[in-house]
């Protein structure tokens, strides 16, 4: 029995170690391609360790996609802030005054599953008519359609976990609901609020289809800029690798340093669990 258990343990460690290696290799390879000198990338047999490192491609990339980087930050920042604020207020309303099987709540949640392609067509026509194509609102507005449902759901769950008595004491003391929301509920919800900010930020930062169709050059975020490098810089593997690494950096940092909030965010997927 003991022998079998340790055999299982060994097998489990091998499986997990393999998963870690497979997870890391492509990320390492991309980083390597962005830092290695031109002669050492895209060769066969491949070089798994560079002889020296260069920041040439990083400098080149930052000077070429700097504007897209700023666009991504502005768009994702706005989406994250607006979604989380509206989601907080609505989430509170649903948690305190509506039943869990409320039909409005279900409707809001189901929007999360809407295929982007069905919405991007009317957005394109409408923004074209309004002269809004290739502006920040042209990306922010569609992103809100996913960001708000996400925020409502996460924060509704978080409010449900807070005991009602705390608010009732303040209400008895003559505070208005809105004051209670800001002074009593908000401080208690801060971790979930931050988690929601992070998740909606990353979602918007990663999004591609809306941004691809609704922007051109001026408002283009990082994801679209990288996809565009496909043709324009077909052979500049180092430059594209550096750009892709930059785009992957915020999610990476959040995954590593904000583990706690990430787990909170997962609650979204465990709604019925």
């Amino acid at each position: 029995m003991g022998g079998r258990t340790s055999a299982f343990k060994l097998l489990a460690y091998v499986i997990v170690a393999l998963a870690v290696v497979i997870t890391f290799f492509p990320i390492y390879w991309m980083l390597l391609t962005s830092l290695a000198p031109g002669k050492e990338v895209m060769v066969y047999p491949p070089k798994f360790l560079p002889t020296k490192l260069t920041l040439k491609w990083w400098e080149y990339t930052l000077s070429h996609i700097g504007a897209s980087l700023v666009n991504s930050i502005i768009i994702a920042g706005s989406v994250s802030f607006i979604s989380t604020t509206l989601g907080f207020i609505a989430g509170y309303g649903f948690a305190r005054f509506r039943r869990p099987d409320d039909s409005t709540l279900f409707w809001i949640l189901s929007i999360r599953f809407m295929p982007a392609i069905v919405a991007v067509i009317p957005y394109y026509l409408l923004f074209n008519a309004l002269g809004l194509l290739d502006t920040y609102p042209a990306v922010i507005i569609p992103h809100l359609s996913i960001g708000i449902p996400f925020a409502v759901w996460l924060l509704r769950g978080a409010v449900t976990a807070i005991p009602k008595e705390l608010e009732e004491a303040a209400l008895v003391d003559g505070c208005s609901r809105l004051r209670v929301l800001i002074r009593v509920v908000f401080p208690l919800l801060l971790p979930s609020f931050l988690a929601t900010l992070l998740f909606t930020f990353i979602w918007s930062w990663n999004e591609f289809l809306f941004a691809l169709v609704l922007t051109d050059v001026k408002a283009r975020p990082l994801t679209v800029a990288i996809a565009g490098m496909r043709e324009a810089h077909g052979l500049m593997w180092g430059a594209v690798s550096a750009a892709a690494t930059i785009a992957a950096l915020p999610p990476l940092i959040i995954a590593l340093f904000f583990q706690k909030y990430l787990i909170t965010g997962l609650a979204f997927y465990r709604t019925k669990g």
Partner: protein
Amino acid sequence: MKLNESTFFVLPAVIVLLLVVVFPLLYSVYVSLYNYDLLLPSPNFIGLGNYLEALGDSRFIASLIRTGELVIMCVTVQYLLGLLLALSLYYHVGRFRGLIVALLSIPPMIPPVVIGYMGRLIFHPVASPVNYLLEVVHIPAKPLWHTSAQTSLLTIFLLDTWQWTPFMMLLLLSGLMAIPQEYLESVRIDGASPWQEVRHVVLPLLKTVSVVAILFRALDILRIFDIIYVLTYGGPGTSSEVVSFYIYLTSFNYWRIGYGAALSWLLTIILSLLAMIYLKYVVKSF
């Protein structure tokens, strides 16, 4: 009184969503009834003409089937691998579990566009490090990955699996950690083998979280677009043209916006039906 308060809190989000979701979607239904072509002068009302055309559009049907194949491959493999990883971590990895979970949770956070680009690097037809590793372990095959019509869909499956298996693992692990320890202890006292414990106690308790995880993943893959745009652009030929990509080309390359809108509604209807059938069937079998 209560009703007014609830409306006051819920209303802002609902109004914004009505404006940014419902209004565009209604407009899309309207457009789908027109022969709306941005390369032609004025659109004509053609009723359900676009929808009827879609039923006979073999390229659309093929893209749907291709997407279905991708959903089945991805969901099955990702679920099984995720389960294997979650069980391994839960039963045998104690000390480093937190660290490993943190490391493995990176791929789902990375933009799919970046994943598609990563695919271009590691599956490059000439300089692929993966093919080099195959050579080192004496596997004679030298696949052309995304640049061959035979393996393009497989390559997308591999990349999607790389990205999303950790997501399955995270959900299943959180399901495992929610199982009360007393359950498992009493089973062990009754003399159940580890296999019996997993098969008859743990797996049934994971049913709910499994249903949710599989549903989320299936709905995501039904809409897959980003990786394909970057990696294969639907090709070679139409070998990796999934339904979202075909609708994208129809609307924004061939500029047949009315027809694209109709196709996108058919996709949405299929998606909703599948989700409903799945949930109904699974909930019944509980």
